[in-house]
């Protein structure tokens, strides 16, 4: 029996086209319905057939903060998967495979090999994606789960294809289950019952839903991995939610279109990855100059250029900080996990509306394409919506309306096009309070200075609108691990591993990059030995932090091979750095995926 510590990871590996997603999904739903937490990470390539795909599903009674580092069950759908991963299984783990096609090779001590003679046990001559269903059946036995759970899942999944398909799938699943009962030893700890049923979402779905909850009414995109999931969610749901979604000709069009829609009064958002974001940048500056609130999401992938489309990286921090020509303020925020991504969207929209400026969200492949359990109760479906200073549509104009009135706060009430009595223009050229252009007719250094200062003034107290990051964990820890965005969860797990090794560490997870709480961060880190953990080569955050606070880290743990950190990568790095004199530690990725 368990004591709340059930923590199990399984992986399904094969080539693209072998239908890995489906058993992964079925399993995730069974697990989440049981009230267990899960986190999945899919290592894949930008191909439709072939290659090597490796889906890790971690399941636990406690919340799961990363895909972890150990593997308890390997389902190898092809020989390649077996060859790559079997050697990494430790004692107590099991490997499941179709013995018609795959042979195991040398397994470590205590690893249970579970061959499935699929043709024989199903009576099928030709086996296709069916082998996944057979394997799912066998897994149910290994995990100590009732076969009926799978039966229900299959019935739901194939309901649309008719009774015959459902029955055939149940039959082959049962063949796998029965064979496993007769031949394989289940894990000593069966999968426990968790609490209430949980839902499953990806980070991209969380971002999209966060937009819907924030009142986004216009979403535009050009497909680009790993951001496309946001577009897919809107495409599927927008119509029933009264939201417009457009796939535009390119990211330049996307960005300018959302600025236009936002100008007309709709909350408007778009998502892309680094390459598309690069094309959007001129429009981000335009949104700043015209003072139009809108949100741009960059789901980072490994760059530069086309880079590694299906691999993760935190390489676009500086791109976001400096996106677009000119010297201007924008919000830049990097959510810490999927739920945080969801909550960030309405918060950022409120801020952007309040200060009439663009906001940038830096997600990455790890957060966006991972799938996670979530308790429905934890999703705030009705967040506060604050549209900022807007002129009432019915308002009579009280004399002359100045769109860019130079107010003490720098914020000037916005009249939406269509409002009688408030006709004005907005311009990407520098302009005065009444939007008259400074550049073409005459330049006026005093007026230019006033306009620059008016826009900048809006941001003077922006940091006070946002919660500063705080150190979590023991105050007297030997080291503080500093991360930004998606590394928060894996750092927390690394800290637990370090504790087991007798090293105390705490964490500072930075979410808001502009405005950066430089004073609070400097106060929190002063006198501490801190190590910055980031998913890039050059230490973009480390350099940014130094430029804003003057603080230099004791050490750095960096990974830029495309795969995310596993907890032990960080724990190893921290231990190594503390044992030496700091510097940069680059963990080696053990599995080639």
């Amino acid at each position, binding site marked *: 029996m368990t004591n709340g510590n059930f923590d199990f990871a399984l992986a399904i590996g094969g080539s693209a086209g072998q239908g890995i997603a489906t058993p992964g999904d079925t399993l995730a739903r069974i697990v989440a319905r049981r009230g267990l937490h899960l986190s999945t990470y899919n290592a894949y390539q930008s191909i439709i057939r072939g290659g090597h795909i490796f889906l890790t599903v971690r399941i636990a009674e406690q919340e799961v903060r990363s895909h972890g580092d150990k593997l308890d069950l390997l389902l190898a759908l092809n020989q390649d998967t077996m060859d790559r991963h079997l050697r990494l299984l430790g004692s107590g783990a099991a490997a499941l495979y179709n013995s018609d096609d795959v042979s195991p090779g040398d397994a470590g001590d205590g690893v249970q090999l579970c061959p499935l003679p699929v043709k024989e046990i199903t009576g099928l001559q030709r086996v296709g994606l069916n082998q996944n269903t057979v394997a799912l059946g066998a897994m149910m036995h290994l995990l100590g789960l009732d076969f009926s759970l799978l039966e229900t899942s299959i019935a739901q999944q194939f309901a649309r294809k008719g009774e015959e398909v459902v029955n055939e799938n149940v039959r082959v699943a049962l063949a796998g289950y029965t064979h496993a009962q007769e031949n394989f030893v289940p894990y000593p700890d069966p999968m426990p019952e968790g609490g209430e049923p949980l839902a499953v979402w990806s980070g991209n779905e969380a971002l999209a839903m966060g937009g819907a909850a924030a009142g986004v009414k216009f979403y535009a995109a050009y497909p680009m991995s790993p951001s496309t999931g946001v577009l897919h969610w809107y495409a599927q749901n927008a119509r029933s939610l009264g939201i417009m979604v457009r796939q535009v*000709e390119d990211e330049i069009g996307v960005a300018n*279109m959302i600025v236009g829609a936002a100008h007309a009064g709709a909350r408007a958002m778009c998502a892309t990855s680094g390459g598309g974001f690069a094309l959007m940048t001129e429009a981000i500056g335009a949104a700043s100059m015209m003072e139009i609130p809108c949100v741009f999401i960059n789901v980072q992938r490994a760059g530069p250029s086309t880079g590694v489309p299906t691999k993760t990286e935190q390489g676009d921090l500086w791109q976001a900080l400096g996106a677009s020509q000119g010297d201007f303020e924008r919000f830049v925020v990097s959510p810490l996990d999927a739920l945080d991504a969801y909550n960030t969207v309405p918060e950022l929209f409120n801020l952007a509306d309040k200060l009439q400026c663009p906001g940038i969200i830096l997600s990455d492949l790890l957060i966006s394409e991972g799938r996670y359990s979530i308790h429905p109760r934890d999703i705030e479906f009705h967040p506060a919506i604050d549209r900022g200073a807007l002129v009432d549509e019915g308002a009579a104009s009280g004399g002359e309306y100045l769109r860019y009135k130079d107010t003490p706060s720098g914020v000037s009430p916005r009249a939406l096009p269509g409002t009688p009595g408030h006709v004005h223009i907005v311009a990407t050229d520098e302009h005065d309070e009444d939007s008259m252009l400074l550049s073409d007719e005459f330049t006026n250094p005093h007026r230019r200075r006033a306009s620059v200062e008016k826009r900048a003034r809006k941001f003077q107290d922006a940091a006070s609108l946002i919660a500063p990051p705080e150190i979590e964990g023991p105050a007297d820890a030997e080291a503080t691990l500093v991360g930004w965005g998606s590394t928060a969860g894996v750092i927390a797990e690394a800290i637990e591993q370090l504790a087991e090794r007798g090293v105390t560490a705490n964490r500072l997870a930075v979410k808001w990059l502009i405005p950066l709480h430089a004073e609070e961060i400097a106060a929190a880190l002063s006198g501490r030995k801190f190590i910055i953990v980031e998913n890039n080569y050059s230490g973009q955050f480390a350099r940014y932090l130094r430029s804003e606070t003057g603080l230099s880290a004791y050490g750095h743990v960096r990974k830029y091979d495309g795969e995310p950190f596993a907890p032990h990568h960080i724990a190893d790095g921290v231990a190594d750095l503390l044992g030496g004199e700091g510097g940069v530690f680059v963990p080696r990725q053990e599995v080639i995926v």
Partner: protein
Amino acid sequence: MTTTTIELTPKDFKGKVDPDWCPGCGDFGVLNALQRAASELGMQPHEIVTVSGIGCSSNLPGYINTYGAHTLHGRSLAFATGVKMANHDLNVIATGGDGDGYGIGGNHFTHTARRNVDLTYVVMNNQIYGLTTGQVSPTSRIGQKTKSTPFGSVEYPINPITSAIMNGATYVARAYSGDVKHLTDLIKGGIRHKGFALIDVFSPCVTFNLDNSHNFFKARVRKLEDEGHDTDDWAAACEKAMAWGDEIYVGKFFHMENDKESLTDLEPVLRDGPIAKRQGGLTEEQADRIIQRMM
């Protein structure tokens, strides 16, 4: 269209500042025609949004009394589509130059026509980059000498009329800015038309393109109305549009009135009115439905 019935004159559509165009610039005629069209159609300034890119011609929104957006170089159509999709109660007019629309903005031109977005697009085609002091443009003629082609251009020009028709625009016209009355009528037709309307206007740059001057066009333009041209006939329209010699045609080349719906009509989400007027996030029922699908 409006709750007030006060008839406005073209003067009421005068902007806060006077144009800084060179004396004799063709763009004056376009501005005049737009102001006359708005007044003759009984429109109110707040019902119109004039969206431009960057260029001499793109300065137009500052000179007309309507809502306006002077956006980035080449991006007027993308921005204008955003405005129109967010609030289709507004009349959205995009204005700009040949470089802005057919060069840097060419991709948006293609796709805005294809989508048949309900916009009126008035291009002041002077066959040159005016604001940047006279470089070759996508509509400059082969052989034309400009600052960036001092020995004559070796590239063929784009034909905006045939491009627009092929890309799916449903109202395609050409005018000469020296004939303000004719241009006004074509703009009015474009505004009334439900769908993407292009009015490509020969609007001479008297400073940097001396080849395509007022005199050049005055001597050559022939009105399609006088030629018995059938505006349903796209093939005839393209043939007439290609003519470039002693006779150059202006007028309405192509008009598809009913056979192709505009994006506003095709987009089911707009059936309940403008999305910009729908505030708020999710209802309880919507939230429930979303969570059910995630379980």
